[in-house]
């Protein structure tokens, strides 16, 4: 069972908002990513296609089209650094370098234990508080300074340990 009953019910509860089930596709993919480790596994694609009564390729091409959907595993904390103009002008490149140094990975890579991954992203829509970092789909971290990165990473590690009860 790639999708839990609870997750299936959450997806079905969205159907009445639209004249066609297919319109729930992006929402369903968000739910799956949020609850199943930040990415959409192949068996989830089949399960969603079944629920929405569309072909698996219809799901697969949507996963590959949108930047927020991942068809491969990403870190439990997926750190997205905006590198568009306003953020670049306020030090985004330095933030990417800083994260590379702290975590030992390059953009597009994941730390060996799967705890962190880093990605350069396009404009997040927070140019007035640049530079901006987004962890997973959480509220933006704004006006991020190079000096903040170590405590940001440490805070995410603490939070993860608390979540798994270590």
């Amino acid at each position, binding site marked *: 069972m790639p999708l839990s009953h609870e997750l299936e019910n959450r997806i079905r509860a969205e159907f009445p*908002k639209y004249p066609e089930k297919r319109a729930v596709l992006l929402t369903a993919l968000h739910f799956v990513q949020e609850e199943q480790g930040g990415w959409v596994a192949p068996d989830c694609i089949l399960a969603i296609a079944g629920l929405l009564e569309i072909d698996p390729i219809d799901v697969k091409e949507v996963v590959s089209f949108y930047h927020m959907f991942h068809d491969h595993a990403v870190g439990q904390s997926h750190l997205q650094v905006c590198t568009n103009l306003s953020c*670049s002008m306020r*030090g985004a490149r330095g933030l990417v370098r800083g994260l590379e140094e702290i975590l030992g990975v390059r953009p597009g890579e994941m730390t060996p234990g799967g705890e962190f991954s880093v990605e350069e992203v396009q*404009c997040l*829509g927070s140019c007035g508080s640049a530079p901006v970092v987004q962890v997973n789909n959480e509220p933006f971290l704004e006006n991020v300074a190079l000096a903040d990165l170590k405590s940001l990473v440490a805070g995410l590690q603490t939070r993860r340990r608390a979540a798994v009860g270590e």
Partner: protein
Amino acid sequence: MSVTASAPRFLLPPDSEIWTSLEVYREHGGYAAAETAIRSIAPAAIADEVKASGLRGRGGAGFATAMKWSFLPKDGSRPRYIACNADESEPGTFKDRQIMERNPHRLLEGLLIAGFASAIDAAYIYVRGEYRTAYDALRRAIADAHAAGLLGKNIFGSGFDFEIHVHRGAGAYICGEETGLMESLEGRKGQPRKRPPFPAISGLWKRPTIINNVETMSHVPGIIANGAAAFRAVGTEKSSGTTIFGISGNVQRPGAYELPLGTPLREIIFEHAGGLLPGRTIKAVIPGGVSMPVLTAEQAMAVTMDHDALQAVGSLLGTGAIIVLDDQQCLVRAAAVIAKFYRVESCGQCTQCREGTGWLHKLLLKVESGAGSGADLEAIEDVARFMEGHTICGLSDAAAWASGWFLRRFRGEFEAHLEGRGCPHDATSFEI
């Protein structure tokens, strides 16, 4: 003299306040305009008032809002939809987010009035997936409005039924294009549709659909509450009302400022945004999001922020998103960062855009590195020409304008990089 000394605000609460709660919004007069409109104004009269206000779309194109509504068929067939564009993704732009995060009921009230005026069944707010805070605020606001009977069946006892749904995107600039948005909302890749048919005739699920930006819809309650004349009293003849200017880049106080259209760009930079860093001067200003042609310092200091004035200097108001670049920055780098954006965001449907955006980015990186020649500058111009006016949507044109205008207006800086010389601002400019 500042034209904005006593400027009224229509969209945002005072700086320190957040009006996400329904109670707080109602304490400030919220939903009174919707109640008046639905109880006692004829739908056609609402549209007339919006027409008289001169309201133009705040999503970038500046199209007359009431005219857009008037394109809906008159046959009375149902259902009909509103698609509200909250896919704010034009680099430099963060204004709609201010409304959704700090005053979400304002948007809901605007949709409610517009929905009543045009006999709409449901509105879908398509909010970009990255905007988590806005999404949560809207969901809460919709639930609260529903519980209070402001949405749902028989609103204000009028017999009018109306639903608002918030729909999350998933990271794709092209979904801010109106037909790309509709494809995406229907559960597909956000690749724009060919027009005709236009959305007013065949939009969401092939039904009549009006599509307006968040800020545009959020102006409607103020127009109904205070009247078209009060709206027109602010701004200029052809660009009426206020807008939320977002300013970023090399200024002391980047941020979002609600001001009248027609405010001098100089005033926004030097008064509201606190001016430049000490000892710096302006080199270039992007006035309306990166898709809009860049201005020289001289143009920027003389222009006012309205449709006519910006067109007169060969640019456009766009989303009113201002990015200031000072004299220490490399404009070839700026152009390259922008070119990369379009390369990443091209939906891939049209050859000119899919291939051209990649070429522009590669050529600009080559010039920036010092490896370029005069032939590469000509190639940039050629590629830009080939991309303009030949595609299904405007992304290709925007990419061509962005690179093309940086080169046209700052050619000397590009030439200074050529033939092994590299970046003359390497020591001071931002990095890419």
